[in-house]
């Protein structure tokens, strides 16, 4: 028992500096905006009167509803597209690529992720734009007469850009779970007369689900709060929730309403994530 106490004390004193840092730089500010969201906005100051008004406004304002719905839809579509496109790549690297080449593939997949996010987003605008790479090559080749408009500075281009930005986030967790799958299970499935497709469906995919679930959450949560892509691609005309929070907090200087927006957005994301995990809980049990 004394041994455990000494160990616990050693561990706690070691984790104290990073934990206190996170408390001061993250928890305290988060609690502050939670408190702000229940206060009243005055001119140039915040009046310390408790109110639910900010939340009432967030719930009832049609503009908030449009922006929130758009953010949710964009994040869901981006997540679905990213994870579905990423799975075969993760599968290829884990099951087909020779072991000594695997790190090279992972390195190649992660490099674009580490290069300037802003410039990448801007370049998608260049690629998809009116005189962009896609349109000018297609018209140049005579495939189309008029530039394609469905990829121009709209929600579609936001989805493409975000699906590109978060690709490695989806590939890596799926790859890690695929690597852990005991290959003899697949052979067993085959030996018992299952076809290749059925083995994949009934053995590989369920075992890979924890990675897929992680990928879904890792892509979904940051995408819904993305600020840069709507700003650069949409030119500020197609705001998502992050842009709206920023406008309320700074341009309109209504910190209580901005805080209520931020808290509501976090709550919605948390509820969706927990529900999603709950609905898929049977796959998480498989691992244990």
């Amino acid at each position, binding site marked *: 028992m004394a041994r455990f106490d000494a*160990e616990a004390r050693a561990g706690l004193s070691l984790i*104290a500096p990073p934990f206190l840092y996170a408390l001061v730089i993250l928890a305290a500010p988060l609690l502050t905006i939670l408190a702000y969201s229940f206060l009243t906005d005055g001119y140039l100051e915040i009046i310390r009167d408790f109110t639910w008004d900010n939340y009432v406004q967030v719930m009832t304002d049609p503009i908030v509803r449009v922006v929130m719905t758009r953010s949710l839809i964009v994040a869901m579509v981006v997540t679905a597209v990213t994870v579905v496109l990423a799975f075969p790549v993760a599968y290829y690297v884990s099951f087909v690529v020779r072991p000594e080449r695997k790190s090279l593939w992972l*390195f190649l997949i992660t490099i674009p992720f*580490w290069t300037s996010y*802003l410039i990448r987003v801007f370049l998608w605008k260049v690629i998809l734009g009116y005189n962009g790479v896609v349109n000018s090559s297609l018209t140049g080749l005579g495939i189309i007469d008029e530039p394609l408009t469905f990829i121009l500075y709209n929600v579609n281009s936001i989805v493409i850009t975000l699906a590109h930005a978060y*690709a490695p986030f989806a590939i890596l967790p799926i790859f890690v779970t695929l690597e852990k799958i005991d290959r003899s299970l697949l052979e067993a499935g085959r030996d018992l007369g299952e076809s290749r497709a059925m083995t994949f469906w009934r053995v590989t995919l369920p075992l890979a689900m924890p990675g897929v679930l992680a990928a879904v959450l890792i892509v979904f949560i940051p995408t819904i709060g993305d600020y840069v892509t709507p700003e650069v691609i949409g030119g500020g005309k197609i705001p998502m929730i992050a842009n709206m929070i920023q406008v309320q907090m700074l341009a309109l200087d209504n910190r209580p309403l901005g805080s209520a927006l931020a808290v509501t957005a*976090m709550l919605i994301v948390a509820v969706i994530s927990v529900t999603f995990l709950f609905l898929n809980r049977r796959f998480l049990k498989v691992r244990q």
Partner: protein
Amino acid sequence: MSNHSKGRGLQAYAVLYLLFLYAPILLLPIFAFNSGTIIAFPLQGFTTEWFAQMWGNATLRRALTNSLTIAVSASVLATCLGVFATRASTRFSFPGRGGMMGFIMLPMVLPEIIVAMSLLVVLLGMGVQLSLLTVILGHALICMPYAIAILSTAFSSLDRSLEEAAFDLGETKWGAFRLITLPLVMPGIISSLLISFTISLDEFIIAFFLAGNEPTLPTYIFSQLRFPRSIPVIMALGTVLVILSVVLLAIGEYFRRRGNARIGGAPTGGLL
């Protein structure tokens, strides 16, 4: 035969996917050396003028100095804090370990706008002057989870008996850490420093809101994207940044693998 063809199909798909991933980056140097001022095809002539303009730009140089200051400070701070957290979580068991580690790792999944806005509101409320220091504080917070993810691989595969041997031979706790543990995890530490540096150098949201009037490279780039005339210089800057990132990551990957080999791990796994 069917196994072979399945591999082929997947490989073709994976190569196409890589092409999709690299599409924007491949365009960067093309436009950086293109003499036309409009970023579109067809290309004009070859020029290095944009690179010359880039070196001559005083604001850009200031942004670079600021970004380097922030990135070096934030990566050192994040890695130091990360070493504490990783050492605690991999070596000791104590009450609340999972919860505390989970909270420290939270910035990895929290949208940056939430981190930036809440921190900004607090700093403004306290009357703190926005400066490079406030950006460093924010960047260290978001780099810390990545530092821990990298350091965990290095720390968790440490053989505890090596340390115990050092104790038995009369070393103090600190002596054993310095002489045994630290050299073994050094590649992980270097790799963590490089990754944190790269993340901080490229981070936009926190720098945008917490730097006050000081430019950093990403906020400078953002301010210039509105002016079509400045875009070619930004393409040149982007080209240089991509090369820099790739070199740093390659060095980081080299150290990570060397660290893995040193502790007898398999040479697989990526940067995360």
